[in-house]
């Protein structure tokens, strides 16, 4: 039997209270409080369960879409699996994630991206959209078979060597040109490799004092400047991953002013944390690009508020304990983020009055879905909260607070930089095409064989 959910008194996008009905996999009704029409029969006349949820003062957002998630499978199932990572995503309010290509083997063939896509389907927590590698083995030497990945069942549209920069300018040019054939986008990890050899943290006052090798802002900015000019020259689409410096914001602002087709993301951690945390030498705070200065944090907040930065993407990067419980210089880069992203955005952007909930829906749902080209097609994401749209929604209690407990998280890894920190807001429920993946703040296992109800998509160009 299917379930109809009636969200009573909820505030869509933080607006006026309404009753919202999720039935038959879609948003069936949006009505004045108390006025929603609910039947206990579906369109075919079969009986349905009706579950009423008192959502007074809760905010309804479209299901969140992450353009930058490391699910680690295949290869590093000891850190995360598609199942555990997507469960964490659902707990964080996501209904779709883009899985980065730096797995083992690398997602640089149709076979690997289809495997990841299939694992996502089987897990059923969120839609998993694999990102394809730009170059074979992330080697930065020759193009991977981008067309085959685009044409596969996974229908890849986002290509990235994330973790490594496509630094060879002619290779980057070719990639930007090539993906135009299937409306793809190259998501660049902007890091000039020679300027960052052995780099451990942001280069500045703190690195000078504590003696860790510096990762200068110019190493990011120089690549972004080059890439926006290349994108302009060949008339292609560029996406800048995890932009982290004030100078990067300026360059993207300039490029957009020129009409260049560039989009940019910022991570939650770059919106809130600074390089001062490196003074602890706790590798939990070791991340790439590194935590920057307070001035950079202010610049990325301003850039997100004024639209220069299009989206927030988590760069959720789970790591095993042994890869973090060691010397800073020996530790892996990265921190988890799926289960804290929305709270950090609320804390830094909403509660400070810099953005509305409608803006949150844009930067965490509609814009990333549009960049990934998953806003149309058989299982669209990032859609408006309107009758007839797929019931991909997240119910948030913005007045709740919680203290982050690494061990209580759904991710298989414990490397959250927010452990012990109090953050605002709570994901109460997440719905994927009308099915609850999270209820009362807890993940709800999918019924066996449900396969999340996602229609199978054939390859087509």
């Amino acid at each position, binding site marked *: 039997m299917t379930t109809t959910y009636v969200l009573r008194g909820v505030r869509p996008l933080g607006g006026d209270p309404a009753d919202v009905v999720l039935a038959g996999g879609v948003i069936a009704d949006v009505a004045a409080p108390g006025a929603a029409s609910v039947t206990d029969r579906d369109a075919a006349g079969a009986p349905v369960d009706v579950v009423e949820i008192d959502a007074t003062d809760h905010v309804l957002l479209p299901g969140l879409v992450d353009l930058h998630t490391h699910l680690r499978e295949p290869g590093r199932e000891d850190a995360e699996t598609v199942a555990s990572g997507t469960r964490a995503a659902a707990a964080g309010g996501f209904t779709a994630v883009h899985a980065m290509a730096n797995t083992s083997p690398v997602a640089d063939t149709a076979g690997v991206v289809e495997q990841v896509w299939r694992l996502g389907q089987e897990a059923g927590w969120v839609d998993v959209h694999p990102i394809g590698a730009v170059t074979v083995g992330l080697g930065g030497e020759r193009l991977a078979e981008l067309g085959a990945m685009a044409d596969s069942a996974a229908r890849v549209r986002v290509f990235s060597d994330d973790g490594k920069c496509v630094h060879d300018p002619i290779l980057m040019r070719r990639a930007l040109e090539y993906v135009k054939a299937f409306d793809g986008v190259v998501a660049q990890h902007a890091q000039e490799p020679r300027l960052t050899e052995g780099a451990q943290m942001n280069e500045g006052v703190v690195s*000078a004092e*504590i*003696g*860790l090798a510096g990762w200068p802002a110019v190493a990011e900015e120089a690549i972004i400047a080059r890439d926006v000019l290349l994108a302009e020259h060949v008339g292609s689409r560029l996406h800048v991953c995890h932009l982290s410096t004030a100078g990067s914001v300026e360059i993207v602002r300039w490029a957009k002013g020129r009409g260049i087709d560039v989009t940019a993301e910022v991570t939650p951690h770059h919106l809130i944390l600074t390089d001062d945390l490196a003074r602890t030498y706790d590798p939990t705070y070791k991340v790439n690009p590194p935590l920057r200065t307070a001035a950079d944090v202010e610049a990325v907040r301003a850039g997100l508020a004024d639209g220069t930065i299009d989206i927030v993407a988590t760069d959720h990067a789970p790591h095993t304990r042994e890869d973090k*419980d*060691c*010397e800073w*210089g020996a530790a892996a880069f990265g921190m988890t983020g799926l289960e804290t992203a929305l709270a950090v955005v609320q804390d830094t952007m909403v509660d400070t009055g810099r953005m509305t909930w409608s803006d949150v829906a844009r930067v965490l749902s509609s814009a990333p879905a549009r960049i990934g080209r998953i806003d149309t097609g058989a299982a669209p994401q990032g859609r408006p909260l309107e009758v007839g749209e797929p019931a991909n929604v997240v119910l948030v209690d913005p007045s709740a607070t919680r203290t982050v407990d690494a061990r209580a998280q759904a991710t298989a890894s414990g490397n959250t930089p927010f452990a012990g920190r109090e953050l605002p807001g709570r994901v109460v429920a997440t719905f994927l095409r009308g099915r609850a993946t999270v209820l009362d703040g807890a993940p709800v296992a999918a019924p066996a064989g449900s396969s999340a109800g996602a229609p199978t998509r054939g390859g087509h160009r």
Partner: protein
Amino acid sequence: MKHLLSTADLSKDDALLLLDTSAQMAATQSREIKKLPTLRGRTVVNLFYEDSTRTRISFETAAKRLSADVINFSAKGSSVSKGESLKDTALTLHAMGADAVVVRHWASGAPAQLAHAGWLDAAVLNAGDGTHMHPTQALLDAFTIRRHLVGLRGGGADRDGVGSDLAGLKVAIVGDVLHSRVARANVRLLHTLGAQVTLVSPPTLLPVGVEAWPCRTSYDLDATLADWQPDAVMMLRVQRERMSGGSGAFFPSPLEYTRYFGLDGRRLALLPEHAIVLHPGPMNRGLEISAEAADSDRAVIVEQVANGVAVRMAALYLLLAHTEAAHTEGTSL
């Protein structure tokens, strides 16, 4: 003081206590019987992840002169080289009952992790971590400077300058500041003790962010020596690998480095009469310091080595025995 991790953690009182205790320790080292019973029954582990024979034997000598049991745990020939984690090594040392761990590590911050991660409860002495800190080196440098420029020169009753800080003294630190834990440790300690510091280095070997340090910087050694007239000049060792690496080399050639930043007889003559020359060793004669400068009577380089033992005795004593001694009337060295 529970640990000695960074000179940035030391108050002026802490620093003076360390230097004054070092003076007492140094005095015992001119006795016929140099060994003191102070740390009898205590275990000091030298945990060395980098080769450093001179620092290790200095700590070993210091611990043995205080009658501690010393265990040398080297990264070579132990489970470390087979990839044991710092954490497991720390847990092992804890289980063996180490009272103090003297750690030299290639990773900046490793001693701080040992001290604060909850893996062991021993006192941690930083014997040099990455490009971060080398507190006992800075202390022995300050001790040597004080002895020569406050004690002996002051002509007072106390030739070690006990009780005095370094107010008014000018110290030039010359060379590869970027990669130097010795420079970082000295800048903080000398500032705390009231001295003025000028770092002299090619621009490529000064860190971005140095502007926040409590010191001046210069690219011009001749001008610094002639115009600023430092009371002490500390030459830093230049690692050979800084000149290689092709396009990433930090300066064009050893000859050019020596031409602009090497201390030789001509530059020595620019210094005031009383000025002293320090070097943490080991020296590259002919690169950052000429034989003439290294062997001149201004050079106190060999004395630095002797003072290193006294300073490390003081550090071990203060971390391991001081609190007990404070309650035992009449305890003397």
